[in-house]
């Protein structure tokens, strides 16, 4: 695939005796939205976290555009500027306002000037529907609002790729939709997205492909309708029976 923006080759990773990844190959094209599903402990979050090197692979390679993430010589900070990440537990900075959460990294990493960074933070807050929360601290926001600020914070770096690590798992049911709506807009705008999540509605509405992982391996990958309706593998079928 010539237009792949993420290329994962034979990714292997162990935590002590536990093999989290046992040889994963995956390519994600520019503009593609890929949902990664699988039982807990299947290695899906580990795979995601290896893409921006929050975890180090034991062997194998991951490429983001022309940069080899797994190379010891990689300029990892440069790569991370291109790869936004959204966490299950939001990880907003509690001592900073929503606007400052968003503008801090553009200010100190991209060295944008203050007025520009603040203007962009306000624009991003408007985009995620939180224009009136600029001066709120994270603890004053609901979970759904915090996650939307976290998405805006990642977008402030103008990334080419967005990684989502179970973005709705820590949310109360009534807040899931507001976060998925923001993600849906992002997908429509052509953002390349790798999403670890079991949100089937989101998968049907936005995903180009769903990847099913189990025990550190990709079992199968297919467009959402195909995978959900006609899974080829027995293991996929059993897993889908559990969650659908």
């Amino acid at each position: 695939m010539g237009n792949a923006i993420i290329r994962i080759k034979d990714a292997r990773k162990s935590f002590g005796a536990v093999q989290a990844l046992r040889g994963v190959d995956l390519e994600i094209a520019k503009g593609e939205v890929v949902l990664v599903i699988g039982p807990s402990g299947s290695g899906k979050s580990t795979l995601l976290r290896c893409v921006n090197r929050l975890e180090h692979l034991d062997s194998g390679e991951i490429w983001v555009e022309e940069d080899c993430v797994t190379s010891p010589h990689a300029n990892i900070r440069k790569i991370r500027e291109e790869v936004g990440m959204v966490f299950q537990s939001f990880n907003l900075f509690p001592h900073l306002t929503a606007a400052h959460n968003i503008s801090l990294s553009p200010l100190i990493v991209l060295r944008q000037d203050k007025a520009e960074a603040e203007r962009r933070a306000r624009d991003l807050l408007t985009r995620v529907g939180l224009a009136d929360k600029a001066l709120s601290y994270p603890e004053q926001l609901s979970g759904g609002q915090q996650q939307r600020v976290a998405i805006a914070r990642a977008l402030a770096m103008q990334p080419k790729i967005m990684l989502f690590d179970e973005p709705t798992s820590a949310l109360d049911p009534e807040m899931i939709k507001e976060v998925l709506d923001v993600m849906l807009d992002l997908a429509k705008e052509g953002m390349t997205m790798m999403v670890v999540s079991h949100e089937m509605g989101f998968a049907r509405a936005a995903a180009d492909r769903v990847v099913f992982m189990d025990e550190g391996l990709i079992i199968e990958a297919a467009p959402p309708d195909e995978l959900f309706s006609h899974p080829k593998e027995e293991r996929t079928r059993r897993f889908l029976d559990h969650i659908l």
Partner: protein
Amino acid sequence: MSDFLKIGKRKPTPAPDGSGSAPPPAHGDFTINVTDGTLIPSTGDKSILSAWNISFFGAIAAIVLLRFASPEKNVYRDVLNVVPSGLAATFGVTLASIAFALVLGLLAGLGRIARTKPINLIATVYVEVIRGIPLLVQLFYIYYALGPLLHLKGPASAIMAMSICYGAYMGEIFRAGIQSINKGQMEAALALGMSRTQALWRIILPQTVKVILPPIGNEFIALLKDSSLVSILAVADLLRRGREYASTTFNYLQSFTIVALIYLIMTLFFSRLVGIMETRLRNHGQRHN
């Protein structure tokens, strides 16, 4: 040194309001409990509060009574004219030492969590060695043993020894404070392209300050008390003033009674402040959870 540092996850202790249920620990929400010689009164605990009241106001009343109503009030008047002049040295040494100890402690704490092996080792050895030697021995070592080498005067030696000693204890407070911050904070900062150093200064340390303020307040109180050790090094602090007065007049009982009462009033006063600060920080953390 009788300090006893206890660091751990917040345990479900009965809430001060007596409702019996502590808030569930938010992720990464740690408290550092340092039990020191002095009792930290919590505003909610009536019995401790009254114990504090009895000690604090009792000490003040005792001084007033001794000065104005005792048969030896003239002796106490003389003691009170001489001894408090040592307060300047006591506070001078304490404040200078705490300032340097904070710097050393930050460095030691960062060293203790550093990924670079040699730095980590240096910091750990520093903490272990210093915490294993009594402060009095360290004072003697710097003033007498290294005196010919360093040519330091009493106060400078005292400040140096106390800074180095308390820096080690502060180092452990900084380390525990930094490690109490959820590791998701560092990950989020790194994922945004920040360097480790940027993440540390912009994200981790500002949050650490809130966690470590109470234990640092306790170290301040402990240091204030330990500063009396420097009276041995020809530093004219509170205790030294008392000794000087006593040895010229032979009024040992009166001198040291006043010295003890002044120390008691100071430490009780500051532990009250630390207690209030602790409550404020805790309440602030809970308001929005």
